[in-house]
């Protein structure tokens, strides 16, 4: 099947697209139909190579992530629980009507967006609320969540977040003694492993992580939060050696709001005038729409190619994986005032 479609593409010179050599990522492998038929988003190979020509000489470090306020410090199991449980609701921090960001003051510091979520989780733990326990999460009530996430505004999409916590909590309670680290230990130390890898099983056993869209009858996989959660755990525990990951190179970029902005500003991607205008006038781009799928697919495709071009330039002992590029692109623009696409979803 795959071989046949590969051959077909090779014969069709008019629409031949360059494909990253990286194989074995079900996310990247699923993007072909979008990249080949996109109407509103394009990736520009020449520009991408030009950018790689200077970005390759930056340091592009492997990040070491540290949880805020010493959460999980020295306790790998708790680190895993903290990161993956937070990851379940790590989405939508800006009120869709007022455009106000969710913010919290805790432990003498001010936190906003995703950092505010982490601070809320730590605050709850400090107050003895078992927010890392599936048995608690499976039945957490709205008033309890309001208290856990008390901040400047109600946490956006709180009802949807309660729902996914119930769902995830139920699975954890039933199968994994309530804890994500038991789930992690039951998987093979790989992202993908014939259905037994960490990502394989996260998206199968927890529907909340099954971040896919349909496009022209094809299933397109993004797996944003599942990959991001595992990456966070990996970069938090990398130095301890407690979380080996044998196929780290199969991780793609995390298809979010910011990396597409970076790619667009760098000129690696471009948008149709209609899409450009829609984004710049803050119109909603509906979840699962062609445009949303194209923005996210090109984000993953372009970062994979950029990573490959950069590795072609760097010496053997300085090769990088895609999340290092993702981090480079994300950190430089996550506070930009250039508008990003707006989509109401719990998937990113």
């Amino acid at each position, binding site marked *: 099947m795959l071989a046949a479609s590969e051959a077909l593409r090779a014969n069709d010179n008019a629409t031949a697209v360059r494909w990253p050599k990286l194989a074995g990522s079900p996310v990247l492998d699923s993007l072909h139909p979008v990249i080949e038929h996109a109407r509103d988003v394009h990736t520009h190979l020449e520009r991408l190579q*030009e950018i790689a*020509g*200077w970005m390759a*000489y*930056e*340091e592009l470090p492997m990040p070491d992530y540290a949880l805020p306020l010493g959460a999980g410090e020295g306790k790998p199991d708790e680190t895993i629980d903290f990161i993956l449980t937070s990851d379940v609701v790590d989405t939508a921090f800006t009120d869709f009507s007022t455009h106000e*960001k969710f913010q919290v003051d805790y432990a003498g510091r001010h936190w*906003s967006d995703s950092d505010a979520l982490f601070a809320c989780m730590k605050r709850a733990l400090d107050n003895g609320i078992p927010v890392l326990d599936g048995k608690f999460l499976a039945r957490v009530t709205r008033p309890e969540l309001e208290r856990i996430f008390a901040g400047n505004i109600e946490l956006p999409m709180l009802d949807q977040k309660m729902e996914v916590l119930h769902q995830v909590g139920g699975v954890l309670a039933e199968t994994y003694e309530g804890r994500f680290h038991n789930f992690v230990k039951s998987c093979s130390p790989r992202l993908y492993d014939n259905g037994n890898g960490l990502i394989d099983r996260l998206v199968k056993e927890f529907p909340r992580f099954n971040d896919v869209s349909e496009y022209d009858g094809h299933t397109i996989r993004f797996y944003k939060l599942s990959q991001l959660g595992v990456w966070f755990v990996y970069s938090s525990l990398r130095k301890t050696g407690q979380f080996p990951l044998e196929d780290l190179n199969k991780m793609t970029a995390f298809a979010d709001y910011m990396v597409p902005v970076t790619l667009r*500003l*760098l*000129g690696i991607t471009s948008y149709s005038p209609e899409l450009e205008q829609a984004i*710049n006038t803050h119109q909603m781009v509906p979840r699962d729409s062609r445009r949303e799928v194209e923005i996210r697919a090109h984000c993953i495709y372009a970062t994979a190619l950029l990573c490959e071009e950069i590795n072609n330039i760097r*010496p053997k002992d*300085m090769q990088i994986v895609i999340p290092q590029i993702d981090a480079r692109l994300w*950190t*430089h*623009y*996550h*506070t*930009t*005032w*250039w*508008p990003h696409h707006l989509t109401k979803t719990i998937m990113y």
Partner: protein
Amino acid sequence: MNRSRRQVLKGVSTLGAIAAMGAEPLLAANPVKSPVSSGSLPWPKPIGSPVIESLRPVIEGSRDVKTHYDKIVDAARWMAYEELPMPHMAVPYGLDKNPDVAIDFIMVSNTINSAFTDFKTHIKFQTDYADARLSDSDAMVACLKRAMDNGIPILDGKFLAKVSRPEMEKLFAGNMEMPMLDEKMAVFHQAGEVLAAKYDGRYVNFVKSCPPRLYDNGNGLVDRLVKEFPRFNDVSQFDGHQVKFYKLAQLGYWGMYSGLGRTSGFKLEDPQKLSAFADYIVPVALRLMGMTSYSPALEKAINSYQMIPRDSRQEIEIRAHSLYATALLAEEVNRLRPADQQVIIPQIDARIWTHYHTTFWPHHLTKTIMY
């Protein structure tokens, strides 16, 4: 100082996010007007920097280095939307608790802030201090702090004026002899004598005797530093013109401004007159991004680690173009940013420097105490 500049990385991540929110998006992605032109040469709007004003003969008469204005405009179109924060440069070892000591420490270390790699072996100077192994200028700074801990009066001009070679060797004990140790001793002697004779031995007294401006009709902080302390008079001759770079002088004040500015321990009314700091790394970044290019001969000389002599045409062109191109880049970036998010050149310098100071791409090699 390299150490301070590296701290920039830490400040980049979180700050300034809130400030960005209220601004209307500037969606005009096309900078329309070109800068003030003289003939065909784009020239940045005057910012009152004698350094930048002195560059014209080099930019007009360059043979080996070219600046590509179209590439600068192109880079500005994405760089403008980065945060480009005003760095908070940490004064090393918490010395900012006493601003006077901090000023002395920054200036004394700045006096010898150059050449940390052995020119023959290419080994970097390293030392161990406070349970850490430090390299390059970090190691030099650690040596000075170690000396202070041991009661050696390294902030006192009277000591520096007469420091002996064996004392220098002890001060800078590390993995090898500090490169250019004799030259560093000579600048300590020279600066120490001036400090002892006129400023009761302390840089802070010199700083306080100046108006809080870099340039002020010959009386400003940079004006007087380069005049009274020849060690900071970083200038070169090019086709009969004097070209000013003032790398360490400007960098020292920038370090004080961004490290002490918030404690009001150091006032500076005209930071917008700072140029970039003409060093080894910023030219590499500009060259890699295509904003500058080199003649094949110069490219080959750099990439094969040949020495580029101090005050040679090639060295001057490399440094002059790095100041010229960053000034143009700052101007193009500001064209695209809202009024409350305008940047000054050192923010661009920091952005470029932090991304490439560890690069494996070769930089030019020059034996000098000026940078």
